[in-house]
């Protein structure tokens, strides 16, 4: 066995992967009413192109792309538009969603299937990926066609698929790699073809031996990673596999690397081979707060409470409902929010599991310094942010924080370090904007 690859720093929270890790992906029917957000991706929200009373078919564009860093949005069902609604969304406070009454989920492929992608040009394939509305499925939801179009002069030599899935509880990528191996492999080949890269690899944490075996068996170069949070962070993953460091303020493409999620690869394969737009995704529903944790193939626009019901309903004293995992996931006010393309998991935490909401004073023990994967001094940035010394926080590299939560996790005083650092980031960016204006 070769040495496990990893990065310096980080922590190893309890994994809780056993809750949903063995549960096969179960496809669930779209609900009677879907609420499809028009801002599921990073960048400008789609512009609505349907109105109340319109009939739509499965895969039809209901929101059009609005700028380069933007995407079209498609209807996951055939049905009737009941209206547009401003509603709470899992990844932001609120946004516009198209409400559709479902008639059926059947229908022909919305795009022409291309069984042999090699007969297409890279430009044609990127266009298909754009039209299919594909964004990163790992969480950040960055439009994939932009990621696959490096600016002139930037040479990409390595494609790394992210199958680390380092967040506790989440197993959606794990099940995808095991059950839909062919989709992941095809998606990787398509993206490698588009980028013209020499090297392709999949990074998978050691705790998913069946996924490692499945992809190795399919002839893919699998890099086995140490189980450590945040191993699935793009920069840390690149460091672990290539030894290269993304420069401060830079992007992976600055050092010749592109890192899509395995879920994105599968979505690309389905768009190219089957002509399917991005209208469904795999969602892990887990945590001590649900009866029967599992992995569900659900239409975007399905409300969280429907998925909770599919997982047997709430169990025990649920105090927090998360979109995503417990380290970076976003606490939801209501379970009426709909699944988006970026919803990798729904985790219901009970009072016993959830982090306390009282903090003590910083004793400068330095645990956060040892653990920070970006090699920052979280306690000092937070101390300056608390006093609103934004310039000092910036000198300490506050903008370089990716809010992975490792520092708050290890803090013996349960300090809200991420909160303070994010406040500093907002203030620093606001000051920069007003300076430019």
């Amino acid at each position, binding site marked *: 066995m070769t040495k496990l690859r990893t990065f310096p720093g980080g922590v190893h929270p309890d994994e809780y992967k056993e809750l949903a890790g063995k549960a096969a992906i179960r496809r669930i029917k779209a609900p009677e009413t879907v609420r499809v957000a028009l801002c599921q991706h990073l960048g400008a929200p789609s512009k609505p192109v349907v109105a109340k009373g319109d009939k739509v078919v499965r895969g039809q564009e209901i929101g059009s792309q609005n700028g380069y860093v933007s995407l079209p949005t498609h209807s996951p069902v055939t049905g009737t538009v009941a209206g547009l609604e401003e509603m709470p969304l899992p990844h932001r406070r609120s946004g516009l969603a198209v409400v559709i009454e479902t008639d059926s989920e059947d229908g022909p492929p919305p795009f022409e299937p291309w069984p042999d992608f090699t007969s297409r040009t890279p430009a044609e394939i990127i266009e298909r990926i754009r039209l299919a509305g594909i964004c990163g499925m790992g969480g950040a939801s960055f439009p994939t066609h932009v990621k696959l179009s490096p600016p002139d002069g930037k040479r990409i030599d390595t494609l790394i698929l992210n199958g680390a899935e380092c967040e506790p509880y989440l197993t959606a990528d794990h099940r995808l790699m095991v059950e839909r191996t062919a989709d992941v492999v095809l998606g990787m080949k398509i993206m490698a073809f588009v980028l013209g890269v020499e090297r392709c690899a999949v990074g998978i944490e050691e705790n998913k031996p069946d996924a490692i075996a499945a992809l190795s068996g399919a002839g893919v170069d699998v890099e086995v990673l140490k189980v450590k949070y945040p191993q699935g962070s793009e920069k840390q993953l690149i460091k672990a596999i290539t030894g290269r460091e993304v420069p401060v303020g830079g992007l992976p493409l600055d050092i010749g690397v592109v890192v899509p999620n395995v879920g994105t690869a599968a979505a690309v394969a389905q768009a190219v081979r089957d002509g399917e737009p991005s209208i469904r995704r795999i969602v892990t529903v887990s945590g001590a707060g649900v009866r029967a944790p599992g992995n569900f193939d659900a239409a975007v626009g399905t409300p969280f409470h*429907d998925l909770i019901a599919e997982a047997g309903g709430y169990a025990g004293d649920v*105090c927090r409902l998360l979109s995503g995992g417990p380290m970076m996931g976003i606490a939801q*006010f209501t379970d009426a929010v709909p699944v988006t393309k970026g919803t990798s998991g729904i985790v219901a935490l009970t009072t016993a599991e959830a982090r306390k909401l009282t903090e003590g004073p910083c004793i400068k023990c330095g645990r956060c310094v040892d653990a920070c994967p970006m*090699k920052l001094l979280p306690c000092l940035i937070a101390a300056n942010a608390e006093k609103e010394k934004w310039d000092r926080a910036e000198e300490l590299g506050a903008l370089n924080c990716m809010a992975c939560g490792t520092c708050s996790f290890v803090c013996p*005083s349960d300090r809200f370090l991420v909160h303070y650092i994010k406040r500093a980031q907002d203030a620093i960016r606001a000051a920069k904007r007003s300076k430019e204006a």
Partner: protein
Amino acid sequence: MAETRTFQVSMSPHFGSPHSTRRVMFDVVIALLPALLGAVWLFGLRGALLPVVVGVAAAVAAEFVCLRLMKRDTSAALDGSAIVTGILLAYNLPPGVPWWLPVLGSAFAIVVGKQVFGGLGSNLVNPALLGRAFLMASFPVLMTAGWSAPFEWRNAAAGFETHGMPASVVSEMPVADAVTGATPLRAWKDSFGMESHDGQAVREGLTDPGTLMNLLTGRRGGCLGETSIILLLLGALYLFVRKVLDWRIPFSYLGSVALFGWILGGPGFFDGSAVFSVLSGGVILGGFFMATDMVTTPVTHAGRLVFGLGAGLLTVVIRRWGGYPEGCSYSILLMNLATPLIDRFTKPRMFGEVRKHA
């Protein structure tokens, strides 16, 4: 359609590790206890246990009163940090001091050393050491004279009336020191005021294997908590196992004391004793339990090495040329004050940071 429920919202992460400040503090208390047993063996209940008990009680009481006056959560008085301060203050007193000395020192440590700055986490210097400095300045005679010899309390000092030193060494010391302040460090310091031949003989007596063995086993004159070196190391080992202690400060500090003790500690260059420097005085207690106080020391890895190195150098300089035989506590206090500056100049290279070459 299922019924809609609402939940608590909060910033990520939503998970925490089981570490707590309380656990850290009580681990330190546990780690200090073996040395207390050693102190009682050497100096008796009255000589060692009483000062510790009243020191801790006074520290907790002072903390409680301050928190009460400031309308803060008074349960923080029992978070363990005041207990640690009380123990450390008492450990830095000569055995058998009057009961009110640790009471006064602990109260000063908590009130002036900690609470006026805002309580736990906000103090600039180690409270226990500030308390000791206050007592040194206010009651110099009580703090430096009248060291009881090991086992004196049970009239069994046989062989240790000389405080673990060869009789020839004590007989060379100035009468006042030999009677009241006979610690090995005082003898070492006095040796520089003697005829060079006599001074040399004293230093040789202090570094002979028998004396060094007495230093190691604590059978020598010294502060009540600093002499049981083996038991202090046992406590430090516990803290390492519990991952409460980072190796950088203790090792750089003790290494620095040994190195500079050898280079600068003797009459000329390179004729001090590294072993004597580390085993005498309070550097083991200081290096593992006081220079490592998290609140008042750097958070950066490089900064911790700088801190230890600087404190070690200052300890040796004070021992050799300063007004006191021991420089451990003042060296740590001075470096505490430099801590924010050290942190500022030892910021680690960020992930992906490319340092510009000047």
